């Protein structure tokens, strides 16, 4: 119990040092651009490759429900809502945690083990602002960007499954999609993934920065990053979904 509280306190202090590094301008912007570019390139293919089949599955299963009621034209808004509100944010963030977060944790962990972080501190450079902050902020920016691309990919997956494979009319698919999908859904999705990106960025840099115990410690940092960031953002997802979509059901 005390150990958990101490860990939470350390994470809080670490977050404060990242924010401090950003506000005081000690975070190098060129590093931010570099890491942002790396993480988007690294995560792009996995995110697209995961959300696309999910769109196909939603269309496959959704069509079975809607065919029972003869309401096939509602399929595309249903797929779009499921993808934009829930599946793309969750799956894209899972992949960002698994690919981007874990690779940042591995990089920082290896720097810690090789005493590069200590070397940075010895040179009177703030190592959190210099090494951790650009990576964490890069994840905050990358996560919503990748999520929007994931939404497009998922809806295209739904289109391929419904129109090409199941033979639904393409015109109805697009018309119903534009009619019933609101920009509000997309904004909620972007806001959600910004929060998820912050969670992933903070936890991956925290676990990587505090890695210890040789090569095995780097492996453990990566493992902790993936498990804890997914756990925490899924819990946050429930609260955010309740706030955005929970009230208007009656």
């Amino acid at each position: 119990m005390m150990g958990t509280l101490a860990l939470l306190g350390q994470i809080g202090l670490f977050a404060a040092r990242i924010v401090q590094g950003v506000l005081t301008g000690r975070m190098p912007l060129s590093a931010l651009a570099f890491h942002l570019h790396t993480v988007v390139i690294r995560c792009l293919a996995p995110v697209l490759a995961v959300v696309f089949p999910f769109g196909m599955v939603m269309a496959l299963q959704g069509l079975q429900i809607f065919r029972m009621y003869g309401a096939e034209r509602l399929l595309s808004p249903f797929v779009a809502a499921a993808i934009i509100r829930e599946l793309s944010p969750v799956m894209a963030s899972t992949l960002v945690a698994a690919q981007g977060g874990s690779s940042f944790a591995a990089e920082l962990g290896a720097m810690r083990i090789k005493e590069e972080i200590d070397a940075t501190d010895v040179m009177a450079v703030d190592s959190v602002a210099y090494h951790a902050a650009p990576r964490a902020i890069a994840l905050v920016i990358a996560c919503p960007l990748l999520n929007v691309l994931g939404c497009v990919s998922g809806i295209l997956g739904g289109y391929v499954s419904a129109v090409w494979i199941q033979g639904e009319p393409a015109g109805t698919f697009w018309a119903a999609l534009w009619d019933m999908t609101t920009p509000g859904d997309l904004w909620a999705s972007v806001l959600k993934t910004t929060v998820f990106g912050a969670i992933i960025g903070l936890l991956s840099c925290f676990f990587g920065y505090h890695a210890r115990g040789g090569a095995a410690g780097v492996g453990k940092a990566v493992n902790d990053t993936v498990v804890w960031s997914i756990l925490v953002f899924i819990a946050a997802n429930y609260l955010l979904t309740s706030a955005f979509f929970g009230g208007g059901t009656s």
Partner: protein
Amino acid sequence: MRFLESAGRFAYFLVDFGRAMARRPPSLGAILEEAFRIGVRSLPVLLVIAVFVGTNLALQGANAFAQLGGQNLVGTFVAMAGVREMAPVIAAAMIAAKAGTEMASQIAVMRIREQIDALEVMAVNPLWYLVAPRLLGIVLVLPALTILAIFVTLLASWAVVVLQLGQSGAVFLAEARATVTGADLAFSMVKGLAFGVIIALVSCFFGFQAGRGPEGVGRATNAAVVTVSVAVVCLNYLLSVVFYG
């Protein structure tokens, strides 16, 4: 090109592994130990995730179908999406994130500490000794974990429908019961089995391929979890088409 190269290496890995298994079956004790480790250690994480998958399915289902005037479709939606798709995939993703990354990093650490070479020197086949118990252990527990995840998902959805949305729990349960069949549960267990095979083989493969130094371990773990996630979701679509398409 790099992708083709690793695909080829993975094929070699599978052939070597199959040969090692054919020559000598792995010991039951090692399999049970791995099954216990994977199953029991991953259980808390898995259950927490399953709770939140259930809550969100209920919220989103209620929201989507309220616009269409079908309040009682929530049960059908949660049962369909949760039992058939979300619970198996999320269970596999969590096991990949927890047990899969552990496998990859353990084997990668053994590789860079030359413990795997030591095994070979002692005439112990490392594939037989390290991969086989992990594979069979995960295959043993993942279907069971999938079923647990399904029940926790449904329970959490029921709680949200009754406590947060204030709708009738009896209608929800009746709808869910009418939708879920024994075949759905069996298909989800088969999915869990297939995902388990992928998680174990791919994670161990990347562990064996680890490069030098601490970066090698980190990179192997990272590559394992990403490849497994993509493979699981793509396989899920194929299996869904076969079972339900």
